Structure formats: structure tokens, C-alpha cells
């Protein structure tokens, strides 16, 4: 039996979205309301299981009376609010933010971003060939996962997932500041010397591929990673009695990575080291 959590009934509030009256449950964000109304507002740092830090600023919209644009992912809808999602002003900010990001980090493994760059006519190259980039070498210091900060947009999702929102391990945080800010473990040590417990929940939430399975990283380097050839099978983890759901990503009859369904009411996408990484025995065929 599938448990469908209903939650507490919520009142509906009314406000205006791009000139149309809409109703949204109390407590929903502008982004929730946009999605319910079938509007596509792009976002990178928002995720379905964490409170967004609203750091990427891609989802900004115009709210009548507000001096600046507001992030749709975090701003709660209020009765009587007048929101416009697609004005010249909002589109301009989104375009510049996408240009700034794409000119400083590698977004090649970020889903959907190529389409947005095209839609907003972003030209990241116009900052010139000398524009500062992160230019970091991938950190490969263990056999389970790789940190490739050249792809990191500092969305804080891995920090929140490792910290008090999910895992409560607090192994990573943001160090330094400004353009030099980086996700780091204590003393910027190798992962193996840190508090990391290798649950991989940070990989689960990373929106850009800055954190990835070592298996995926190696296959991409070898040119053999092919998502179109992969199947996804959701099953139950056999290690203990909790019954977490695992989604096995299989290519050429080999498990290449493991994720977990976010809509599972027990785990919300969380796994432990065994569920996430302990799959080698399945494919040990000797």
C-alpha cells in the first residue's frame, strides 16, 4: 500500500499572477503557484526537499510595490499580491545571472540550463576570454564520489542536506567569501580526513553535477556515459529493515549509480552509505 500524506488542510489565498487571478494554498511560494498555473519559471538552487537558500537568483519575478525583484522560490504568496513573471526587467536579470554563471562555471552537466541560455539569449562569452573562472581541478580522493567545484554554483543545497535539514552530519560548509567562496570540509582537508559519512545525500541534491558518483565521473571521462541507454528501476534496499527505496540506474547491465525517490514519505530521497554505494556485490559475477 502506498501511503499518501495529505497534510493539514490549508486555506486558499487569492492574488494576481501575470494579470490573471489565481488561488494558492496559504504558505505556498510564488514558484509553487506558478507551477500550479502551468508557468515555467527557471530555477537552479530550488529543490523539492530542501528549503531553498534563494542564492542563484534565476527565478526572480516582479512584485508590485517591491523595490527589487523577489525570488519566486522563497517568497510566500500573499493575498492581493500582484506578481509578474515575464517582464522585461525580470527577463533581463535572469539573462544576466545566467551569463554570469555560465561564464564562471561549467554548466555542461546542469539539466535544462542550455535551453534557458537559448531562451533568454544569454551570451556568456561577451565578458571576454579573460573573464575569471573557477578553473578548479576535480577532487578525486576516495572511491565513492568526486567533487568537481568547477561546476559548483554555490547553491548551498549540499550544505543544507549534510546539515540540519537532512543528514545532521555537518561535514561541509561554505568557506572563504566572495568569488573565492568554496564548498569545503573542515580545514579544506581531503574528504577521507573529514566528518563525511558517505551517505551521498549531497550528490542526490546537487543540481549541476559538481558532486557525482565516481562511477559516473569515470565513465564520463572515458566517454562511455550514456543516459539514453540507461534504465531506472526502483526497488527496496535489502541491507536493513527500514525499507528505503532505491532507484538503480543501469547501463549495459551494470549499476552505474543509485538515487532515491524524493516523494517517498519516509526517506525523501535520503539514503545511507550502504544503500547509496554498496551495490558492487550485486554485480560480482565471479
Amino acid at each position, binding site marked *: 500500500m502506498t501511503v499518501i500524506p495529505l497534510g493539514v488542510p490549508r486555506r486558499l489565498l487569492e492574488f494576481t499572477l501575470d494579470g490573471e487571478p489565481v488561488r494558492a494554498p496559504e504558505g505556498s511560494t510564488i514558484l509553487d503557484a506558478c507551477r500550479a498555473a502551468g508557468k515555467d519559471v527557471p530555477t537552479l538552487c530550488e529543490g523539492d526537499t530542501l528549503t531553498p537558500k534563494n542564492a542563484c537568483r534565476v527565478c*526572480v519575478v516582479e512584485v508590485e510595490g517591491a523595490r527589487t525583484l523577489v*525570488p519566486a522560490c522563497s517568497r510566500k504568496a500573499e493575498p492581493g499580491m500582484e506578481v509578474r513573471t515575464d517582464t522585461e526587467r525580470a527577463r533581463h*536579470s535572469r539573462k544576466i*545571472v545566467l551569463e554570469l554563471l555560465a561564464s564562471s562555471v561549467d554548466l555542461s552537466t546542469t539539466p535544462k540550463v542550455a535551453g534557458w541560455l537559448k531562451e533568454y539569449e544569454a551570451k556568456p562569452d561577451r*565578458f571576454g576570454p579573460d573573464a575569471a573562472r573557477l578553473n578548479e581541478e576535480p577532487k578525486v580522493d576516495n572511491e565513492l564520489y568526486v567533487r568537481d567545484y568547477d561546476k559548483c554554483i554555490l547553491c548551498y543545497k549540499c550544505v543544507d542536506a549534510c546539515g540540519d535539514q537532512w543528514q545532521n552530519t555537518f561535514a561541509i*560548509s561554505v568557506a572563504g567569501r566572495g*568569488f573565492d567562496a568554496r564548498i569545503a*570540509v573542515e580545514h579544506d582537508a581531503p574528504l577521507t580526513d573529514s*566528518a563525511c559519512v558517505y551517505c551521498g545525500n549531497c550528490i542526490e541534491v546537487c543540481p549541476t553535477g559538481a558532486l557525482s558518483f565516481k562511477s559516473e565521473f569515470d565513465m564520463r571521462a572515458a566517454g562511455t556515459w550514456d543516459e539514453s541507454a540507461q534504465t531506472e528501476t526502483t526497488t527496496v534496499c535489502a541491507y536493513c529493515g527500514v525499507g528505503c527505496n532505491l532507484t538503480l540506474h543501469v547501463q549495459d547491465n551494470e549499476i552505474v549509480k543509485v538515487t532515491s525517490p524524493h516523494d517517498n514519505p519516509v526517506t525523501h530521497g535520503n539514503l545511507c552509505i550502504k544503500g547509496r554505494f554498496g551495490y558492487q556485490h550485486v554485480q560480482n559475477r565471479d
Partner: protein
Amino acid sequence: MDLHFGDSKPTDEEKAAVDALLGPPESSWEGAARDEMTAADLRWARGGREARERRDLLLPGLHAINDRIGWISEGALDYLCRRLTVPPAEAYGVATFYAMFSVEPRPATVLHLCTDLACAAAGAADLCAGVEARLGLGSGVSVRRSPCLGLCERAPAALAIKAGDPVRTAVSAPATVERAVLAASAPDSAEEEPPAAMAVPQAGDPSLTLLGRVGVVDPSSLDDYRAHGGYTALRRAFELGPAGVIREVTDSGLVGRGGAAFPTGRKWQATAAQPDRPHHLVCNADESEPGTFKDRVLIEGDPFSLVEAMTIAGYATGAHRGHLYLRGEYPRALRLLENALAQCRARGLLGDDVLGQGYAFDIEIRRGAGAYICGEETALFNSIEGYRGEPRSKPPFPVEKGLFGKPTVENNVETLVNVLPVLTMGAPAYAAIGTDRSTGPKLFCVSGSVERPGIYELPFGATLGELLALSGVRDGLRAVLLGGAAGGFVRPDELDIPLTFEGTREAGTTLGSGVVMAFDDTVPLPRLLLRIAEFFRDESCGQCVPCRVGTVRQEEALHRIAERTGAAAAGDIALLREVGRAMRDASICGLGQTAWNAVESAIDRLGAYE
């Protein structure tokens, strides 16, 4: 949480520095010495909420280590984390956020040489080159080029900090190579700083309201303060009651002097009315805006007035605890404030029963550690709480959820000090000063190409030209920066702009926090604009994309056009405008939103790069 600590051990000196702040560990579970465990330790447990609530001691703890040793080692940081139950990764993130801390080994003495606007105009580049030639590798001094040290009236400025027990500091301003080197090598024997009154050219003028006591009273003596009208405002506050005080402040028309110009009475009322308890009061003394030094001069010249004003603000808004966040670069202000708090506690002017009126109030000083962003009110809360000084999203606003998630009123030093005349002279008399919409006296920090730089007090409504005439502006004035690095430039033919909030707004500029920097035609404008761009790139916290990357892209564009004008610069200027517009619209906080103001005004009003 199940914290993981590496095997790096603190030295005895590092342990002593932390223990001097927190007291000795109650059990070896709190310390690093598991091998010395006793039977009692095996039946000892503490943690949970009680431990987590000490998180706000992280910043003082980092200061304790940095002050004693000069830098923060892995062992020292881990020991502090054990004592406070803070995850080492988070503490590392905090330690690396602040410019005054180092997590790499460095010499015990650090010499900060200011390279910001006023100092740059006064020859900081030559000073740096001279000092670096004298104090190279092996000199035992780490020379660092620093953002504004808040000593603009005595530019160029140097600040030496020598780690030890106790930490020694010396300020040299105006600095020469000789004097800066002496301050770094022998801070104890460096020449004494001139008294604060030297920064107030009008000192002794009986018509002064806010600066009236600077240079007149002994800043270390409570008796002298009381002999000069001190604590009459607090007595009047107790007569009026909290609601009465808020009514007076509202009627006076006082608005915040930190730059945002929000009505003070409304802020106090909104906080006082919150049902959630406790309420907190925060005094923002983290002025780090290049060109701003009024908080320092007020505190150094008349520290008790700030203590009295905070007591009144706390009483009116229902707070029993005031947090005074002082920027880390102000050692003399810190000493004088600590002395003032101790004297007030000893005399019943702070504590469980202020003036015998049954009202409990005390003030705690928090030292910043070199981060301009911590002047943003919500970033300041995070800094006090022991987190990275990153701004929070608003709403919720601080009056509802501020420091430690509780209703909080935050005011700048100058705003608070204005409350004293509001109460002593009464709201109508106070409101009669200045103009209809900008009431009261205003402090201006004048520096740059003037004969008498310093803090000036004028009623709102005086013109920019009058202020510059008073400070002896030099011939060949090229531009005036109004409102600091986040403000804007105006031309020499615009000196009739009235110095009021509405007047500057009508003129398309801002009064900001009251900075007035004059630049004559010997100052290369492109170099100045580049310095402003560098400042914002250095000081961006890095949380949101428009500010983190935008400030870098702007600085790059300014580098490209530093020596170009006209058509050759047009493409990059268009780029600057596009990026600037998105930063203003989409950044989380005021730093990113205003970072482009000064450069834009230089292009539009001064015709830079034409």
C-alpha cells in the same frame, strides 16, 4: 549531532587562550585530553540545546585564538569546536569568512595599511611600497593592504596588531614609512593617537548637539559625563515610560542615520508591540563604509552617551539585553567602551536595577573581524550568532524575527545618540532643527581634498557647498563622493544640493551615511573607480550570484577601460550598465544592490571615460 574531530591537538597556549574565554573544561569530553579521563568523566554528559546555545561564543573564541597566537591552527579550531559543540566544518567556514583571521601560519604581528579612497588620495601607494621594502620576508611582520580603516581624517592610515597576551595594537595616522614600521615593530612605544576631538574641527562650539561633549569631557570618566548633562535623558525616559519615549522619538521625526533613513519611532514601536519574548537591541557600530568614521569619533570622544542611549532604546522597546557590534579595527573605541560599561555596571546604571527603577539592562560588546557585509543588519545577526556573516532574506523583518530569531531593533550609533537630545530638549524643539522631512542635526564625515577633514555637525538643510567651505575645500575640485562607496559622485557645479534626504533624492543622489569625500583634479578618476570596484569584489559575501560574479565582471570591465575613453570604452560601459542593473534588481542585500551606484554616477554625472 555526532561531531567528528580530527587528531590535531591544540598547543598549551591555544588551549589557554580558549579557556581564558570559556573557563576550563568541566570534563575531558569537552577538551582534547581523552587520555586523562577520570572515573567522573565516564558519568558525564552534556549536549543538546544547552551546548548549541553557546554557538554565539564562536566569534569571540576565534578572536581569542587569533589575538593570542596571531592565526588559527587546526588544533586550536578543533579545540574551540569541542568546547562549543560546533561542527568543525562550520567553524572553518566562519573563520575563513573574516579578513582579520588567518587559518594559515603567519607572523605574530600584522600591519594593516589602508589603501581605500581617502588614503589612496593621500599617498597610500607610496606608503605601502616604502613599508613593504622595509618589512619584507623575515621581518616578523605580515604587511597587508587593507580596506578603509575608518581613519580618513588622518589619512594615510596604518594599524598594527601584535598577537600575544594581551594583544597589542598601535595606530599610525597620518602614517609615514618610519612611523608605520615603528608601530609594527614596537607597538607599545608607538606614539599615542591624538584625542578624538582632533577629528572634530568644530570641537568646543557650544551650539553643537551631538558632538557637544567631544573634546569637552574626559571619555574615561563617568563623573565627568554626568557633570556635563549625562544621564538626564535616561531619567526623563523613566518619567515618560516606554510608550512615552516611543511617542517622543516618533514625534521628533528622527530617521535612521545608517543610510536607509527608516523612521526610528516606527521601528521601535513595531518591535515593542511584538508578543514574542525576549526582545533584543542591537547597536550597529560596524561602520566599514570607505570614508565613514563618525561612529569611531563619537565612541572615542563620548562613549557614555552611547551606553545611555542604548539603555533608553532597550527600555522603550522592552529589551533587557543590548548587543553592541563594534568593528574589529577600532581598538581604542573598544577600550573606552569596555571602561564605560564597567563603570556603569559598578554604579547601577547597567545591571539588574538601572537607576533603581526596576528595569534590568546590560550591554555586551561583540567585535567584528573585518567584513563590510556585517554592517547589513541581518548579516550582523548571523555574525553575532556564530554563523557566516551572510545576509538573510527578508521578510521576515528583524522587528519580527531578528537576533536569535526574536524581535530585534537595530540602530546605528549616530541614530541612537540622537535619542538623547530628543528626550532632553523634547520632540517639538528637536523637530524644529533641520527641515520638515529631515529633522535634527546630522553628522558628516568629510575627507579627501580639504584643509580640515573630520566630523562636522550641521542641521539638515545646509548645502554641500557650505559644508565644503567649512572644511576648507582645496582649489581644483573635480568631484565629490556623497554617501560613500555605495553612494554617488556629484560635480563641482552641483554644490547647492541641500544636505537632506529629500534634497539629495531630488538631485538624483543619496545622503547615505553622511560621507562627503572631495577629490581634486590631481586624483586620477579611473583609478578611484577601480578601487571602488575592488572594494565591492573583496567585500561581497558570495552568497548570491549577481553580487558574487557581478562584482568580479564589473572590476574586469573597469580594468579594461582604465586607460580608454569614448568609443573604445563604449562596449564595456554598456556591459557595466547591464550587469549593474541586474545586480541592483536581483541581489539579496544592499551590498550588491548598491555596488554599482558610485561608478554609474561617475559615468553619468562626471563623464568619466568620455
